[in-house]
Every structure is written in structure tokens, then in C-alpha cells.
């Protein structure tokens, strides 16, 4: 089990009902963690999801380490 700090934005924040969450998980990768959170919070299907680990963009297949800060990034819409 590793301990991960997850921060939510936009639609994910609304579905989770919170801005962040500390989670103990067996997820090995960011993608596995997202699947776990999707189930728990009933996230809608969102295409082209990205992820940031420790405030840098990362691959969804990246291995997670204990203490990582993870942010899932739905398609952006600035400007």
C-alpha cells in the first residue's frame, strides 16, 4: 500500500465533492489509480485524460511511489 495525495479539478472535483483526497492504494500506476477513483466517485467517461505527478506532466503508465501528489487533467479549455 502506498499513500497518495490526489487533487481534483473541474468536473472531477464536482463528482468527487472535494478538492483533494489522501488515499491509501494498491494502484501501481496513475492509470490504475484513476480507475480506482472513477469507481469510487462515479467519474463520467472523459477522453484524453492526462496526469501530473508531483507538479509535472507524466505518463498515465508512470509507476506511483509512496507520497506522490497526483492530479488528473481532463482536456483543458483556457482562453
Amino acid at each position, binding site marked *: 500500500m502506498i499513500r497518495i495525495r490526489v487533487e481534483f479539478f473541474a468536473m472531477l472535483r464536482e463528482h468527487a465533492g472535494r478538492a483533494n483526497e489522501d488515499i491509501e492504494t494498491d494502484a501501481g500506476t496513475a492509470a490504475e489509480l484513476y480507475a480506482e477513483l472513477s469507481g469510487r466517485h462515479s467519474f463520467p467517461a472523459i477522453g484524453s485524460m492526462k496526469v*501530473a505527478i508531483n*507538479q*509535472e506532466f507524466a505518463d498515465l503508465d508512470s509507476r506511483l511511489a509512496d507520497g506522490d501528489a497526483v492530479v488528473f*487533467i481532463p*482536456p483543458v479549455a*483556457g*482562453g
Partner: protein
Amino acid sequence: MSSFGFSADPLDPARYRQLLIDDACGGFVSFEGWVRNHNDNRPVVRLEYQAYEELGRKEGQRVLEEARQKFEISSALCVHRVGALEIGDMAVWVGVSAHHRDAAFKACRYIIDEIKHRVPIWKKEHYADGDSGWINC
């Protein structure tokens, strides 16, 4: 000088413009994104921007540095609004000063295009019919 930032207060183009003034520069181009009263023919009454600011500042700064490398510009600045916005409010401001206008135009366009595609900012539109939704999600 090149700098990217977020602002929870209304944007102030006159102030940002001052930061880019340089006696060696002959051209200055700015872009302002305004909140439109419609999107895809649907009347919009207000909207909300939310940003992952820590990563957004890094990525915005990278975009500005890329613009400086690709084009011969002197200074560039971009500020993106966050929070609740009304119709007509300014959502984003980009300004570029350069010796020559060609570089200023190209860099300004590059910056806004990249900012829109890469910086983690999300927009929720509230429609006249009471519905609302996060764009692109």
C-alpha cells in the same frame, strides 16, 4: 522579460502593457480573450475558470520561453483570469513587444494557441436556460 500568471481579479491591460514598453521596440501586439455571450449558438450568461495553478504557471512559463526562442521578441507577458466571470470580462491577456512587428504577431499567436492547448485551465459555462457544463470534459 517573459512571465505567465493567474489573476483572481479583473485583468488590467493598461498595466500589463506598461511592463512591455522598451525604447528599442518598434512593434507591440496584444491579444485579449473576452467572455462571449454565446458558444455554439447557445446563449451564455456567465462562466467560471478553474486552474491547476502550480503546474499552470510552469507550463505557461515554458510556452513563453518557447516563444522567445522561436521568434525575435523582446518581452512577452500572459495573464489568465480564474474564478467567476461575466459576459464581456477579459479571460486572458497576451502581450508581446519586439523590434519588428512580424515577430510580435507570430509570437502573440503562438502563445495564445499553446496556452489554450497546454495550460491546465478549465472553463464551466452557465447557459441562459439554467444548464451548465465543463467545456471539453
